[in-house]
């Protein structure tokens, strides 16, 4: 394959916005995308309400979501022991066959202990339960060290690893657990919306190698202004 130096094509913002305004997006399609997210992520009530408001069929038995929802809620409220108990009720193999997930749940428990100011218990838990696993696996050790760094600061939240105390950290753990449960049911385990966004990122990079165009920033939704 010969490497050619091709002049990059430039698409002006004006031209681009005109194209954007011409795209037809079927609202039903977007609704399906949202329904898929609610069902896969285990938001039973919301899926039910959404089905009522849009007339869309959720595509699965919503009751099967209830179990997953209870587990997700437990994690989101920081009650990791309860979440572990509930997962084992559904299927004990889920955690047995997934040491990485189990480690992340225990890490989350450690974070919760630190959040509660239960430092003594946190240290004991880290030394007895987590450190041995960290010795076996360098990746685990690194994650454990990051959590332990919270303890180095009097005000945990303002430490460089303060983000571990954010709600989004619970969400992340909850999603990982939820995906493992879905996999055990042989259901679609990834919601489609995040994949659509990953594809958008990929496609923009792909196009960037050959053209200059208004790129969209995912966090703000704002289009860049291409410079020639």
């Amino acid at each position, binding site marked *: 394959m010969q490497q050619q130096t091709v002049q990059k094509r430039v698409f002006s913002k004006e031209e681009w916005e005109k194209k954007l305004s011409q795209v037809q997006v079927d609202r039903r399609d977007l609704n399906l995308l949202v329904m898929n997210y609610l069902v896969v992520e285990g938001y039973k009530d919301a899926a039910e309400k959404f089905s009522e*408001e849009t007339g869309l069929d959720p595509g699965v038995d919503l009751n099967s979501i209830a179990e997953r929802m209870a587990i997700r809620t437990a994690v989101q409220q920081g009650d990791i022991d309860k979440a572990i108990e509930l997962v084992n009720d559904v299927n004990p193999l889920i955690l047995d066959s997934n040491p990485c997930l189990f480690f992340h749940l225990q890490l989350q428990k450690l974070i919760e202990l630190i959040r509660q100011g239960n430092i003594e218990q946190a240290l004991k838990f880290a030394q007895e339960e987590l450190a041995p696993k960290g010795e076996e696996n360098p990746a685990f050790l690194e994650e454990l060290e990051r959590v332990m760094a919270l303890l180095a600061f009097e005000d945990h939240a303002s430490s460089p690893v303060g983000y571990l105390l954010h709600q989004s950290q619970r*969400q992340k753990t909850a999603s990982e657990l939820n995906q493992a449960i879905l996999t055990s049911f042989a259901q679609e385990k990834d919601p489609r919306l995040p994949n659509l966004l990953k594809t958008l990122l990929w*496609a923009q990079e792909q196009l960037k190698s050959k053209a200059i165009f208004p790129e969209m920033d995912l966090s703000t939704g704002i289009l860049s202004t291409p410079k020639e």
Partner: protein
Amino acid sequence: MERHFYDDLQVPVHGCVVGNLPSEFLSKLPSAWCNKDKCEYLELTKKNLCLKYQGPGKRNEDAAAARTLFPVPSGCAIFYFEIKVVSAGRDGFIGIGLSAANVSLNRLPGWECNSLGYHGDDGNAFRDSGTGTPYGPTFTTGDVIGCCWNLMKGVVFFTKNGLALPIAFRGVGGTLYPTVGLQTPGEIVEANFGGQEFVFDLVMYAKQEKLDLLSRIYSRQLPIGEDKLVNDILDYLVHQGYTSTAVSFSRDSNQGEWVNEQLQKSVSRHRICSLIHHGNIDDAMKEMEQAYPSVCQNKKVVFQLLCQKFVEWIRKGRVDKAVELGKTQLMELVTSEDDAESANYLSEISSLLAYEDPINSPASYLLDLSKREVVAQMLNDAFLQAESAPRLSQLETWTRQLQVVFDKLATIQDPEASLLSLQDFLIR
């Protein structure tokens, strides 16, 4: 990945190419041998698919090649064609491969620069050279040989009787034509450019390649967190007026405050949509007069609302009320607007009056609850316009951007992107 996902995976196959191509390319796919771009020693039959060697067949220079009219489109993901060796003739000196437009037609594919091929007599692979390298089995009468060019990876491999052989060439690019070369009397080959089913399972191969691409894309990290995603879905729900869903979702995802704030801004808009969802058109119209007087001036909107009211009366079995509404307000609107579309819709819903049991009548589709949703959405759009809130939700903005980027990737002929489409995420 799981089996079920694999089964659901859609790949765009158009005859001999895999990939979504702009229509101007789809009408120019290689589909037969070109009767001008072939050596004179070859006889062309069966709708220009079958080639028979008629030359002297004495020296290498007596070789005879044929190319297709159109080259492989460079924006497709995978290209594939097959030949069946009808007869190996005297010596079975048969080559299949690809070559550029200017390569001599008195050569087997692979012997000259800008050509490559797989030869039946020795099973060797040739590229830009008269000396081949050992590659696969030999082939002869009755065998079906395929040539597959994966443009995403720039590799070419061949198939024999449906089985894939290893990769023969890497770094293959440029404008190339499917090519076949014959060299001794009696040799006959018949090509298949997707007009018939291939012996090789091209669809399965394309699915594997697509999965490979998708897993590369999906293994990326998103630069936004889960909470941002949740927020954008909430934004969509609020934006579209799915209030109960928004309230429930925000509660269960612990993002309640944000939604309350948003909902406060447009309580009326959501209340009206919710009234429509419950079939309460009268109260919806009353609230509309208070909150959005300008929208009440829009006759099209009012007409749609009254039509829905008509339908709701019928649903309740109040034919008398429906008839009254039809005769007075609805007729007036249709007459004053002189709009054929409205008149048609009015006569359509009036057909409900003809049945004693409308719910089990052929017109029952008009009573479908989804019609309420249609009306609610129309109102929501009109309200948003009146509020001059951003017309598009974040979710829709992303989707549109992806579509435009896909379109542009197609015009610059990106092979990988041709395997994907927005539909991959939308179909159930």
